[in-house]
C-alpha cells in the first residue's frame, strides 16, 4: 500500500530524511518510531503530498505521490501533528466541510459523518465550537476527519501526544479498532504504544532507518546480540583489555568507579560468552560482584539503537 524508495528531503543544507526505503502492506499497522527531529513528520508530509521529496520516490495506494498527488490524497486520511483545526467552526460543520472537500458524494455525507462521530465518540460535542474543545476531543475530531471519506490508508502523526493517560488509552483502542479496516502508518516516540498497536516497527533516527521489524523480533534480535552487565572489583583497565580480547565479544563499555567497575559486554549474535567472561575476570584477579544478562524492552532497544547511531556519527 505504501512503498518508499530511497526517499530524501533536504532543508537548506540539512537532510531531515536521508535515503529511507520501506514498505507498508495492506492491512498492516506500522509504527514509525524515533526521537524528536528524527524525520517522522517530514516522511509523513511527503507521503501525504504536503511537500515533495528532494529525491527518491514514494508510491501510495498505487499512485506516485508527486505525479498523481490528487489520487493519493483521495486514498489517505491524514492526522497532522498537533491536529490543526478551525477554532470558529462547530464539530459537525467542520466534518461536513471536510467531507465536501474530500469529494464524498452528497447523499453519503450525513450517514458517513454520523458514523464517524459515533466511532470516535464525539456525539456529545458534535454541535460544540471546536475552539472550546479539550485536547482529547480535538484529537478525536481530527481522527473523525481522517475517516470521513473512508480512506484505505490512515497516516497518523503522533496521535496520542498531549493526552492524559485515560484519553491515551481510549485513542489507542480506537486506532486498534480502525486497524481492522484500514492500513495504518503512525508515528510516535512512545514505545509502549508501538508494542501495543503495531505489527511492525520502523525505527528512524536522524533521517535514517536504523531498524525495521516486528516488535518481538526486534527484541529477540537484540537479546541475541547478548549484553552482559557486570559489576567487578579489581583492576578495571586490565580486565577491560582481557574482556575485549575474548573471541566473539564485540564491544566492552567500561565505567570506572575506582575500586569497582561496571562493564557492559556486548557479544556477537547467538554467542554465549558468560563463561569466558567469568574466567577472564578471575584470571585477572577480579571479583565479580554481579553479572546479569540484560533483558531488553523495546524502550531499551530504542534507546540503544538511537544511541548507537549517535556513537557512530559523533
Amino acid at each position, binding site marked *: 500500500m505504501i512503498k518508499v524508495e530511497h526517499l530524501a528531503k533536504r532543508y537548506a543544507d540539512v537532510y531531515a530524511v536521508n535515503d529511507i526505503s520501506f514498505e507498508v502492506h495492506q492491512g498492516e499497522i506500522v509504527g514509525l518510531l524515533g526521537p524528536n527531529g528524527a524525520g517522522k513528520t517530514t516522511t509523513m508530509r511527503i507521503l501525504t*503530498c*504536503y511537500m515533495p521529496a528532494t529525491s527518491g520516490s514514494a508510491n501510495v495506494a498505487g499512485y506516485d505521490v508527486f505525479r498523481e498527488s*490528487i489520487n493519493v*490524497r483521495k486514498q489517505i486520511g491524514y492526522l497532522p501533528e*498537533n491536529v490543526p483545526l478551525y477554532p470558529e*467552526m462547530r464539530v459537525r460543520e467542520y466534518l461536513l466541510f471536510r467531507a465536501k*472537500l474530500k469529494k464524498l458524494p452528497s447523499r453519503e455525507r450525513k450517514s458517513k459523518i454520523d458514523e464517524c462521530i459515533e466511532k470516535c465518540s464525539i456525539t456529545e460535542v458534535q454541535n460544540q465550537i471546536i475552539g472550546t474543545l479539550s485536547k482529547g476531543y480535538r484529537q478525536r475530531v481530527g481522527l473523525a476527519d481522517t475517516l470521513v471519506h473512508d480512506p484505505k490508508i490512515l497516516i497518523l502523526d503522533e496521535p496520542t501526544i498531549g493526552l492524559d493517560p485515560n484519553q491515551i488509552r481510549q485513542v489507542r483502542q480506537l486506532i486498534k479498532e480502525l486497524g481492522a479496516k484500514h492500513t495504518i502508518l503512525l508515528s510516535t516516540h512512545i514505545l509502549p504504544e508501538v508494542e501495543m498497536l503495531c505489527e511492525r516497527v520502523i525505527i528512524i533516527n536522524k533521517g535514517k532507518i536504523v531498524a525495521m521489524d516486528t516488535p518481538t523480533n526486534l527484541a529477540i534480535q537484540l537479546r541475541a546480540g547478548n549484553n552482559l552487565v557486570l559489576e567487578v572489583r579489581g583492576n578495571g583497565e586490565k580486565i577491560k583489555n582481557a574482556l575485549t580480547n575474548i573471541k566473539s565479544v564485540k564491544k566492552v563499555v567500561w565505567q570506572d568507579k575506582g575500586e569497582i567497575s561496571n562493564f557492559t559486554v556486548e557479544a556477537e549474535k547467538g554467542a554465549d560468552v558468560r563463561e569466558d567472561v567469568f574466567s577472564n575476570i578471575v584470571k585477572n584477579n577480579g571479583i565479580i560482584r554481579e553479572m546479569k544478562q540484560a533483558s531488553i524492552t523495546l524502550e531499551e532497544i530504542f534507546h540503544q539503537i538511537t544511541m548507537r547511531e549517535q556513537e557512530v556519527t559523533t
Partner: protein
Amino acid sequence: MTSTGTIFQRELNAYFLSPIAYVVIAVFMVFSGYFFSVMLGLTQETTLRYSLAYTQFILSILTPVITMRLMAEENKTGTIEPLMTAPVTDFEVVFGKFLAAWALYNVMIAPTTFYIAFLAWVGNPDYGAIIASYIGLILMGGLFVSIGLLVSAVTKNQIVAAVIGIVALLILLVIGLASAGNEGWLYSTLKYIGTYDHWETFTKGIVDTRDVVYYVSFTALLLFIVVRIVESRRWR
C-alpha cells in the same frame, strides 16, 4: 472547481463568525456616509463621483483588513496542512478564498446604493455614470483583494499582512494621483500602473475596455502569483 465553492462557503462563514465582517462594514458605512454628505453639500451635484473618489482611500485601508487572515491564519495555525492534503488543487483553494473576500468587499460597499435612492429623491442623477462607477468599484475590489491575498500568503502574521497590504494599496493610489496631469513616459507608466486613473474613468461614466483589461489582467496575474507562492511550500 467544486472545491472552490466549498472553500468559498467556509471562508464567507468564517468572516461572519468573527467580528471582522461587521467591523469593516460599519467603518466603511461611517466613512462613506460622511464623504457622501460632505461632497453633496459642497458640490450640490446629484452624483456619486466625488464621494466615491474619496472612498478609494478608505477601501485601501479596509480591504487588507478583510484579506489579512486568508492565508496567514492557515499558515500560523497549521490548518494549511490538512487543507492542502485534501484532494484539492492549490488554485481551487486560492480562488475560493479570493471569491469569499471579494464577496465580503461587495457586501461592504452594497449599502452605498442607498445613496442612489437618496440622490433620486432630491434630484436627477446620471444613472449611467453611477452604474459605471459601481462596475469600476467592483473591479477595483478584485484587484485590491488579490493584492491583500498575496501579502497574506507570504506571512504567518495577520497584522503584518494587513500593514503591508495597506502600504501597497496606498502606494498604488499615490503613484496614480501624483502622476495625474503630468506628461512623459515615466508619468504615463506610473499612471497606468496606479489604480486611480483607471478608476476615475469609470466614475465619469465611461466603461473603457482598457481599464477593464487593466483590472482583470492585473488581478489574474496576482492570483497566478499567489498560487505559485502557495505551491512554493513544496520546494522550500
